[in-house]
């Protein structure tokens, strides 16, 4: 068994196990930590698929920035304790059955497919090639995404700002 195959199975097992722990752990902080494990496993898959740039971006953006944001919000709300009241067993069962049957249908319909042909890779996943494409053919979407980021930042600040009457009550307290 070649080393890439062993790595593939190990990373897949880690990803699926950690994903299951994300949805079944009661404490949201544990969910975030397991989600970080999932993202690292997916980054490993990107490396196996010769997409090194995406592996690094996935690690930095998802496992780094986004998960830190989630942890910040969870700790801001002080949700360490298990606060989720028990949903009815039937709803849980219905959710699991519907998700599982979707998986069954997708797996059954995609059962027959071909192998990825081996061969020499021209290095499309390297930052040199991707950067050249990004800044020649896709420069307009790149600039538009910067505007998207700016608007998301403004939106987050406006949404996160305290309302005026709340502010006044806070000030009157001190």
């Amino acid at each position, binding site marked *: 068994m070649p080393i890439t*195959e062993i790595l*593939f199975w190990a990373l*897949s097992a880690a*990803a*699926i196990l950690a*994903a*299951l722990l*994300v*949805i079944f752990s009661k404490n*949201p902080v544990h969910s975030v930590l397991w*989600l970080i494990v*999932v993202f690292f496993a997916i980054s490993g*898959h990107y490396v196996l*698929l*010769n*997409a090194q*740039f*995406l592996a690094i*971006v*996935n690690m930095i*953006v*998802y496992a780094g*920035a*986004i998960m830190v*944001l*989630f942890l910040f*919000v*969870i700790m801001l*709300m002080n*949700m360490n304790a298990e606060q*989720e009241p028990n949903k009815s067993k039937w*709803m849980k069962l219905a959710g*699991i059955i519907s*998700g599982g049957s*979707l*998986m069954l249908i*997708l*797996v059954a319909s*995609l059962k*027959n497919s*071909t192998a*990825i*042909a*081996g*061969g*020499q*890779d*021209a290095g*499309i996943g390297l930052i040199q*090639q991707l950067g050249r494409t*990004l800044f020649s053919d*896709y420069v307009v979407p790149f600039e538009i*995404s910067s505007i*998207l*980021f700016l*608007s*998301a930042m403004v*939106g987050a600040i406006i*949404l*996160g700002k305290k309302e005026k009457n709340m502010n006044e009550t806070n000030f009157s307290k001190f």
Partner: protein
Amino acid sequence: MPINYYIFLSVCLFCIGIIGVLTRRNAIVIFMCIELMLNAVNLLLVAFSRMHHAAAQALDSSSLAGTEAQIFVFFIMVVAAAEVTVGLAIIVMLYRNIHSVDINFLNRLKH
């Protein structure tokens, strides 16, 4: 490595995300499950890009086919980062108003 291994892995992660969205009530955990589903799709796109690249290279050894898919994944990550910021700001605002992140309290549109 057959492509259907990657398809099955992505389908598994995606369906785990769906199960999480359907069974959990904590808004933040639901949001995390949506991120998980986005990542499953990204993984599938990268696997298809690799397959496309390998197939194109069998015909022309200097082919650069498959780069577009990776650019696409990059843009998905960009949009997901923006989406997370706004979504978490909305959740913080909800928490400030109803002092909980339980989505069952968010049924005011129903009445």
